[in-house]
């Protein structure tokens, strides 16, 4: 399919472990966003890439969260020393150009920290 894909779909981590979540955006999409969705809430913005440049990381909740998109396509969200409050669904979205507001979401990665 030509949609946004994410892996893994489910991840269980023990508190203190590091995790890496992957996002493959739609081919050719310039903009890439990461969102965090807690149970019963709407998605909340974490960070934004335009090609390989991370232009906005204002939503990252702590310095344990780090994202990269080194070649302007695939992106990885890394969480170091996971805590229970990091348990959430992490959603990746892409859009064709920076000025197009319609974003297309992947299925998400459900992270559970025990």
């Amino acid at each position, binding site marked *: 399919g030509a949609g*946004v894909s994410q892996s893994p779909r489910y991840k269980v981590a023990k508190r203190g472990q590091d995790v890496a979540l992957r996002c493959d955006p739609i081919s050719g999409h310039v*903009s890439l*966003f990461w*969102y965090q969705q807690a149970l*019963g*809430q*709407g*998605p*909340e*913005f974490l960070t*934004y890439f*335009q090609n390989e440049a991370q*232009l*906005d990381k204002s*939503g990252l909740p702590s310095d344990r969260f780090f994202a990269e998109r080194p070649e302007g396509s695939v992106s990885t969200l890394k969480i170091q020393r996971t805590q229970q409050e990091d348990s959430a669904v992490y*959603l990746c*979205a892409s*859009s064709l150009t*920076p*000025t*197009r*507001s*319609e*974003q*297309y*979401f*992947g*299925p*998400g990665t459900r992270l559970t920290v025990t």
Partner: protein
Amino acid sequence: DQQVKQNSPSLSVQEGRISILNCDYTNSMFDYFLWYKKYPAEGPTFLISISSIKDKNEDGRFTVFLNKSAKHLSLHIVPSQPGDSAVYFCAVTLTGANSKLTFGKGITLSVRP
């Protein structure tokens, strides 16, 4: 402080009738508004959007209405179908180089056969 409010957590309607989902926002600077639909274990799917220069946008069974003075938008689904049962999120943004979306908490729509 919530910038986007979807005050009704759930809505149940009969198949064939109209579903009206409401959304309020606080910041008049927002200029683009979107509705997303989400099924369990899937990501949100883009449904319909509207720019602040319009007050209505229609796509098949789905119509979005925008009332800028009231900072209110609504999604109408006519006629409602059982496959429309899902969580609906309202999202707002300020168009520009970083069109990050700000979402409401969502409304769970159930369409009864």
